[in-house]
């Protein structure tokens, strides 16, 4: 043992310095790697969804000269709306097709010809005529959606090198479409049906409007129920309730409920709202109530955290001036806690917007063509629509699934952006 030279503090520090910095670098690299891998997953998701889905915003249209002959349509009383609505538009389309290709005469050839146009195109034609009643008796050039098989062909998803009997499109159809395409009579255009129609069995007639409105109505119910209830519960628990065993149990249960699988809330809704109270199936009202139950814990927890974060000095200042407890809460604590509460509410709403499982249980998974007009109309919601379409075999639904996901993601991003904006807007320093 030599104590002739005991190392000075600076020597010991310098000896360890390299190790300390190496640790720090390692930690930073790990963090960066974590962020980058998350980012890569996000990019991959975006690329696949947009790559699959962007073509759903396009749709093939065929231009036809339609003769709106009053006799063929059997419209003899223009005042009768039913006559306009339920006239035989299909035969109008068929005769227009036959006139365009007079050479095709056999039954088989005609069938081939008719397969060009979407089977639901007669609805579009009916709507066009109802909106432009002066067309009756005239010949008009109109654009009608093509059948989804033709749409797929136009978008280049059909492998023409395959033997004819292994694809859904025959060589004759391909020739027909090619001819119409070169003459400009068949072309791709913006798919407005996707944004204006409800669900359909035909991909080219299917849209997300019904699901969007269903989601909107459901969220209106959810927000108007869950925000007031959650804020009231949070204020009571945080400011008024005594601290004892009962409030402890309540707190544990709220935290627990926030982690309960959402399908359980769906089963609860089915058992209580549908079976016990006899509320209607598949309606946004019940969907909203079920999602309220699901989002309540989230909003309560974030609201309580926001209330807790208000500095005690502000409460003391108000109490010291003789403000009552109510006044302290409503004049001082609540305004300061509101940004946090709103953020929690919007995150809860975003969660509700993306929720599928509980809504399956209360019948919002039904095939619903009509666009809901009220809280008690049968409806479906965006994520359920995605689920339904992803289950459909037609090629057209594959891209529509991705397109619906894009729409859902857009609304989620918009809601989260609103949350950030509200936070910035209402946040006050103290």
């Amino acid at each position: 043992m030599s104590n002739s030279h005991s190392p000075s503090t600076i020597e010991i520090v310098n000896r360890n310095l390299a190790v300390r910095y190496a640790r720090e670098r390692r930690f930073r690299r790990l963090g960066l790697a974590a962020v980058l891998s998350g980012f890569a997953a996000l990019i991959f998701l975006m690329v696949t969804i947009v790559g699959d889905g962007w073509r759903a915003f396009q749709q093939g249209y065929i231009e036809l000269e339609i003769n709106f002959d009053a006799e063929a349509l059997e419209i003899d009383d223009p005042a009768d709306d039913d006559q306009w609505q339920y006239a035989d538009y299909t035969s109008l389309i068929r005769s227009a097709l036959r006139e365009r290709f007079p050479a095709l005469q056999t039954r088989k050839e005609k069938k081939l010809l008719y397969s060009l146009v979407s089977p639901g195109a007669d609805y579009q034609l009916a709507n066009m005529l109802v909106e432009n009643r002066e067309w009756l008796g005239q010949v008009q050039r109109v654009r009608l959606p093509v059948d989804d098989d033709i749409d797929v062909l136009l978008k280049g998803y059909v492998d023409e090198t395959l033997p004819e009997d292994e694809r859904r499109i025959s060589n004759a159809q391909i020739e027909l479409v090619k001819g119409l395409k070169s003459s400009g009579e068949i072309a791709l255009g913006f798919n407005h049906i996707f944004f204006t129609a409800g669900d359909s069995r035909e991909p080219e007639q299917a849209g997300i409007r019904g699901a969007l409105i269903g989601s909107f109505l459901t969220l209106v119910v959810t927000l108007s129920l869950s925000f007031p209830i959650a804020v009231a519960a949070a204020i009571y628990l945080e400011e008024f309730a005594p601290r004892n065993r009962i409030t402890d149990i309540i707190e544990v249960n709220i935290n627990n409920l926030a982690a309960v699988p959402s399908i359980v809330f769906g089963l609860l809704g089915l058992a209580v709202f549908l079976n016990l109270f006899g509320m209607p199936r598949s309606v946004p009202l019940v969907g909203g109530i079920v999602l309220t139950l699901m989002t309540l814990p989230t909003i309560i927890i974030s609201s309580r955290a926001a209330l807790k974060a208000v500095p005690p000095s502000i409460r003391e200042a108000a109490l010291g001036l003789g403000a009552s407890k109510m006044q302290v809460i409503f004049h001082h604590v609540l305004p300061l806690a509101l940004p946090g509460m709103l953020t929690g509410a919007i995150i809860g709403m975003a969660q509700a917007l993306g929720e599928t499982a509980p809504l399956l249980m209360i019948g919002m998974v039904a095939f619903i063509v009509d666009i809901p007009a009220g809280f008690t109309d049968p409806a479906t919601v965006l994520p359920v629509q995605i689920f339904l379409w992803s289950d459909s075999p037609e090629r057209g639904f594959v891209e529509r699934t991705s397109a619906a996901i894009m729409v859902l993601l857009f609304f989620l991003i918009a809601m989260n952006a609103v949350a950030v904006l509200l936070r910035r807007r209402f946040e006050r320093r103290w």
Partner: protein
Amino acid sequence: MSNPIKNPLAAEQLVADPVPSAGEPISMHPDADLSKTVGKIEVKNAKMSMRSVDVFYGDKQAIFDVNLDIARNEVIAMIGPSGCGKSTFLRCLNRMNDTIENCKVTGSVLLEGEDIYATKQDVVPLRAQVGMVFQKPNPFPKSIYDNVAYGPRIHGLAHSNVDLDEIVETSLQRAGLWSEVKDRLDQPGTGLSGGQQQRLCIARTIAVSPEVILMDEPCSALDPIATAKIEELIDELRSRFTIAIVTHSMQQAARVSNRTAYFHLGYLVEVGKTDDIFTNPNHKLTEDYITGRFG
């Protein structure tokens, strides 16, 4: 600390003014007798009168049998080492301790002969009568005007907006802040400097026209210039209000107060005229404290 206090208010309070615990390095004079207060506790025609006040935080006793009178329009300073219970005692005088769970006050605290701990006493009017200024300036995150107008508004003291404007102006003038803020009354009170914020808090307190103002170390977060301004202000306020001030600064106590009360480990050790306390303390502990032997 073994106190099972969950209330965040309580937590802050305990940090600001900890209850004495065994581990705290407060030296106790071996011969010191704490149970009997040295000096004259009674005054004639007292504004406030405290008798046999004990304060407990849970099982821990923070104040032991304190008897003290506060005279009209006097400034009484409460001094003592950290954790001696002076802030706790001050907060008994407008029942701010009510907000702390587990805090129990026994004995009697009379304001104009009425016991403020009587069951029929409502804390809202009490705190309008006994205002409080806190250690850290705590203006509301509202405009300067709204800060001062808040008290009169909730108590309905102003009959019109003109009335309210007048109350705000006189309060700010009395707090010596009017000339500095009169052009920016609509700006947030939190944007002022620390000293200005504290004077804003004083203006906010006097806007309610309380009878007694409690000040809990009002200058501890301020620089010497801001401190001097607050001390001047206290001097001016004494003609209208009764003031009880807790301070860590013995110089401040000597400068602003008429009487001084010295607290030690939860006991009121000595009380008397400020001049007497600082020049000729009777109790050994008081002498040790003011001569700087501990504290």
